[in-house]
């Protein structure tokens, strides 16, 4: 047999050749490199076309899902975790600090509550700046009630202090509620020097309050200092929120508990256009204005207390060379930190 044609080769591979022809072809192939190559290719074609034809069996109703946010189980919610952490710390310190000199602890608790109160209004201002800086819907207009988890306190431990002051030992209480109660409790304090324990006691109307909670007199959190800018290397970015309009998208990343930065992403043509935000948020002009400028923003009246200087908000700006989208990343961290975040963001794309 001289070189068999492709049809014959396929017939042979399909087992359709009569025995004598098949033997002859085999013998030829053993000696002919060229034909061996053709045979090998034919084998590949047969297998591949078989696969392709089988793919037709797939159910055609492959629904394209709308991209949903990955839903986490209920016990993984940030607020719940925070409340649980507070509970744990409160409980632990109750045990550890019992029997210590209560006055010194009370003083430190008071001082912490000072800062807490003060930073409350400072938080308001921070919030305003933040709102101006991250116009496309970063903070809620009603920053007061939800500011606790959202606003970046310059002193994260103080934030925990406020949480701890709440009768958070009541597991049933919603974390939000607890924070509100705390804030109310702190505000209601006429004089700056108020013990958190007393404030907590003042709230003892609900029957849910347990004796355990009432007896909390110490602030269990040790102030370790301003730690907004961790030295820890960023491994991954956690997205807290993402809002979009026609032309802009804002994503809030949480770098560490209480430390958040926001990334605004605008289409090239909209970078200098006026953007109207949804839900009665700020009207922002140029995206330049987003970067760290403090605009006059109507906000709920802040308590008239001295405010400590908020952490400076840094921001970096870049343009994607291919899409020409304008990115602005800002937050109460250093510019180097922002660059790290940027690297992570770009890596993720």
């Amino acid at each position: 047999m001289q070189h068999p044609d492709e049809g014959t080769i396929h017939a042979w591979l399909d087992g359709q050749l009569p025995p004598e022809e098949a033997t002859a072809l085999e013998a030829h192939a053993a000696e002919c490199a060229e034909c061996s190559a053709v045979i090998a290719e034919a084998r590949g074609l047969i297998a591949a076309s078989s696969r392709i034809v089988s793919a037709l069996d797939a159910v055609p109703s492959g629904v394209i899902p709308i991209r949903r946010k990955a839903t986490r189980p209920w016990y993984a919610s940030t607020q719940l975790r925070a409340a649980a952490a507070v509970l744990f710390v409160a409980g632990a310190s109750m045990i550890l600090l019992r029997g210590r000199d209560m006055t010194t602890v009370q003083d430190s608790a008071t001082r912490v509550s000072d800062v807490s109160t003060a930073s409350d209004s400072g938080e308001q201002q921070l919030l305003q700046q933040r709102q101006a800086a991250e116009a496309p819907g970063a903070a809620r207009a009603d920053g007061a009630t939800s500011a606790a988890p959202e606003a970046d306190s310059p002193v994260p431990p103080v934030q925990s202090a406020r949480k701890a002051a709440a009768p958070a030992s009541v597991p049933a209480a919603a974390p939000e509620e607890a924070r509100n109660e705390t804030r109310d409790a702190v505000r209601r304090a006429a004089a700056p020097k108020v013990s958190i324990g007393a404030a907590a006691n003042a709230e003892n109307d609900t029957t849910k309050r347990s004796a355990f909670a009432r007896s909390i007199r110490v602030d269990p959190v040790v102030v370790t200092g301003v730690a907004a800018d961790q030295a820890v290397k960023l491994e991954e970015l956690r997205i807290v929120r993402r809002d979009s309009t026609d032309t802009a998208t804002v994503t809030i990343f949480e770098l560490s508990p209480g430390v958040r930065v926001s990334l605004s992403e605008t289409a090239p043509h909209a970078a200098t256009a006026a953007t109207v935000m949804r839900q009665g948020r700020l009207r922002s002009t140029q995206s330049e204005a987003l970067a760290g400028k403090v605009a006059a923003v109507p906000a709920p009246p802040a308590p008239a207390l001295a405010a400590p200087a908020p952490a400076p908000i840094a921001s970096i700006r870049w343009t994607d060379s291919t899409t020409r989208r304008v990115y602005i990343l800002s937050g109460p961290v250093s510019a180097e930190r922002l660059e790290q975040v940027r690297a992570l963001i770009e890596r993720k794309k």
Partner: protein
Amino acid sequence: MSPSFGKFRVDGKSLSDVERLFRTYNTALVRYLTRRLGDRDWAEEVAQETFVRALRQETITNERAWLFAVATNLVRDEARKDARRRRHLALLAEEERENVVEPESSRLERAQEAALARKAVDALAERDRLALLMREEGLDYNEIAEALDLSPGSVGTTLSRARKRLVESYEALQHERELREKNAAS
């Protein structure tokens, strides 16, 4: 006159005979038709009609070849009527399914592959396509020759051409899609 073993008899086969035919060949026939038509409901209709025709047939020498031949002819006749319309709609639907951003599940990937396969298979000449689909159902060259009214010697050539073109089309479509996805991502 065919012997009447079954309770019911039409001129031709008894119902039990057809029942046997049905049990033996229906799955393969429906699958072949589904692959050919891209529409399972339509495939089952044609298969059913094929078995009804078998009822009327007195003798069938090569059952499988006969069934596939009849099914193929039925498709040919019906397809002529609204072939372009159906195909156009089917292609549109596939394109929609293909314009997916960020597939998230293997089910989606399979649907995408199915769409590509559909396009590639439809790109073949009808005879090449039918021969290949029949071969995939295990019909031997004689059966294919009989079903498609070909000479047995030409079946090998037909199949080799069909396979080569199918793979080439599929790879080209795949490459096209990859380019599109790359452009979309950047």
